[in-house]
């Protein structure tokens, strides 16, 4: 279904003892893990270091330790990866096609922004100003642009934020589909989304405190320890009520 927009050779990611320091503050401390394709989700509270980890993988942040994507150092692997930030403020006059064109800057004329819109069923957004899109459309355009580069590794920061339930399902399905042929790493702050991943890492105060399959990792006492609230408190006013398996 995703021919041309999804790779069929996902690659390994190896992270060993990675530490990131930003102005004397250690924001990531001794993180190590390994994934071989598939979908990996990192969860944890705001400010735990999830986005920092994604930026390290994207090759745009200095670190100590070893980061290898598809056998290459993170900086060298940049052309093999696509990074989707949690939010992107573009030029107020930028159209949706302009944003896609920018994602395709080194792919040349081999791929047309309009084809990308058509493929993802977003033709109605043609000619719209990017900054005027709804949260869901904004997200879908960014993910479409990132996938149009045909990356071997896709890095998604908060792919579900600002989305309504229907768009959450849509994005979740798309991510699952793409993850069959492309290695995906995503950062999400809600543990709910961890259930769609093959592997889940929990980051708390810059440390990777748990890493494994969702059913091994996403447990009551771990979540209560990391987020500092009881599940009953969360469930009181939250849609987590609909996730009895927790």
């Amino acid at each position, binding site marked *: 279904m995703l021919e041309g927009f999804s790779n069929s050779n996902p690659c390994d990611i190896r992270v060993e003892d990675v530490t990131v320091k930003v102005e004397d503050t250690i924001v990531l401390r001794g993180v190590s893990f390994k994934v071989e394709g598939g979908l990996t989700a990192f969860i944890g509270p705001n400010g735990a270091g999830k986005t920092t980890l994604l930026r390290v993988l994207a*090759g745009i942040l200095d670190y100590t330790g070893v980061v290898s994507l598809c056998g290459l150092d993170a900086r060298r692997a940049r052309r093999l990866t696509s*990074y989707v*930030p949690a939010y*992107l403020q*573009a*030029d107020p006059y930028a159209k949706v096609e302009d944003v896609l*064109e920018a994602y395709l800057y080194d792919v040349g004329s081999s791929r047309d922004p309009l084809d990308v819109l058509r493929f993802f069923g977003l033709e109605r957004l043609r000619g719209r100003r990017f900054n005027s899109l709804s949260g869901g459309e904004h997200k879908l355009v960014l993910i479409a642009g990132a996938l149009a580069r045909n990356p071997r590794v896709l890095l998604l920061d908060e792919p579900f934020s600002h989305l309504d339930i229907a768009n959450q399902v849509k994005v979740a399905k798309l991510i699952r589909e793409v993850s069959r042929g492309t290695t995906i790493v995503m950062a999400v702050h809600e543990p709910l989304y961890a259930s769609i991943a093959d592997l889940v890492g929990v980051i708390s105060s810059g440390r990777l405190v748990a890493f494994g399959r969702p059913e091994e990792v996403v447990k009551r006492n771990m979540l209560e320890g990391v987020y500092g609230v009881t599940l009953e408190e969360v469930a009181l006013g939250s849609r987590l009520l609909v996730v009895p398996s927790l």
Partner: protein
Amino acid sequence: MRHMLYLSLFLILYMTLFLLSLSIGVYRVYTPFEAVSLLLWGDSSNVDRAVVELRLWRSIAATMVGVGLAVSGLIIQRLLGNPMADPYILGISPGAALGYLSALAFGLGYPVWYLVAFLGGLAAYATVISIASIAGLTSLALIVVGVALSYALSSLLVIAIFLLGPQLGLAIVWLFGTIAYTSKTESTLLSVVVLVGLVFIAVNRGALTALLLGEEVSKAMGVNVEALRLSMTATAAFIVSLITAVSGPVGFVGLTAPWVARVTVGASFNRLLVASIIVGAILVIGSDIIVRVVGGGRELPLTAITSLVGAPLLLYLSVRGRHAGRL
């Protein structure tokens, strides 16, 4: 489709203005047909032909000043991610002016003062880049350092003008910007530098396209943002320093032309580049015609007119943009 329409309209407007620029002047007004005939078939000893030829070089200079400032403004806005940036944010204008005045103060004549002005502009840029590099050459650092240095240099400029006062005489005309006395050699030099700069910018258009997504995403896609920032600001500094040395500071074009381009053709870099080139040329050649017409036998300072034309245009565009919920 709409973009092509705008670009065609801009091109027609530019060509019309170019013909008018050959025809109109303080000495005498010709019909565009007369002007072109004089150029093509006129006797070289004919005064009228000489007048039109002077206007030709002047029109070429106006075009190159406009193109150079517009594309420099465009790439600096793109590199800094700030639509309010203009090429003079790099301290080039007061740097070049200080160079020019120092040359006068030391009794250096034409054409050495141009060279010193050019070097003054480049020196100011080099200072801005060096200081901003300490802070990691981020766009914020470049803007803050550029603004601070521009104010400091402008103060020195005021002191220099105050001290030199009576000695300045006609030299003051340069400080207000003028291309009235641009020679064939100067116009040719301007054309070569601006065109080479354009080629260099065109070669980097892919990376400049990616920058629409901001520094982080561009870097993540393999763009070397720091190297691009350094090479492209250096290109802009080279072009703008030369323009400023030849014509004096010409304000507002570097800010206004890319704005007009964005509003009409959107944010795609390739289209912006083409539109900025034509709009920049229109703004300066149009202003240079106004300079000759409204002074009543005297030519007005060019920068006063480019700003008087540019400011209302920018105001109109921003108000229009706000109504459409774009800003």
